[in-house]
């Protein structure tokens, strides 16, 4: 949807291993986000980026790092996966109003990555 692709869609990994999730966009948006979704918690922001090499922490950033070396790619890395990081991860982009005004403004989400840490 809206040029956002997350990969992989599903992954099972072992505790203690590093894992990298990828978010790719085709529309050159400046802001990109990583959220995790857990029952009873809604979606919580992990990290976000406001440009190439410009990133900032969200509310649940411990144990995660991100990188953005190109506008189109935003990578989320679990440095040493733990069972508490079993979750569904969503990437999002923020659409600026642009020439279409407020009708174009908003946030579009990828299809999600289901990560299981065993």
């Amino acid at each position, binding site marked *: *949807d809206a040029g956002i692709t997350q990969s992989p869609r599903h992954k099972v990994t072992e505790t203690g291993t590093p894992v990298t999730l990828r978010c790719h966009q085709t529309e050159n948006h400046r802001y990109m986000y990583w959220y995790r979704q857990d029952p009873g918690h*809604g*979606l919580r922001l992990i990290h976000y980026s*406001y440009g190439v090499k410009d990133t900032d922490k969200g509310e649940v950033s411990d144990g995660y790092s991100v990188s953005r070396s190109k506008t189109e790619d935003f990578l989320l890395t679990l440095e040493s996966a733990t069972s508490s990081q079993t979750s569904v991860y969503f990437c*999002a982009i923020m659409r600026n109003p642009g020439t279409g005004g*407020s009708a174009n*403004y*908003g946030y579009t*989400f990828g*299809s999600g990555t289901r990560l299981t840490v065993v």
Partner: protein
Amino acid sequence: AQSVTQPDIHITVSEGASLELRCNYSYGATPYLFWYVQSPGQGLQLLLKYFSGDTLVQGIKGFEAEFKRSQSSFNLRKPSVHWSDAAEYFCAVKFSGFQKLVFGTGTRLLVSP
């Protein structure tokens, strides 16, 4: 602190009955407000959004929401619920001065025959 509250974890509504899902937010200046819907195993679909102007906004699938500044609320409504509306609904807020979206914990809607 910025927070979004959806006080109802689960709601069960009979098919054909009306629906109202509640959402309240903290913080000061009028934010940008969104409602998303998520079917099991699926991603998030935008139902509607509010930025300014008319406080009653219309969305897709027959949903509407009303912004009430005095109550810091943005409740979602539908006059007649269909079985296909069973899903989880999330209220989300972009607070003034920030570029990130803050979500409520969601309300799961069950539709009974």
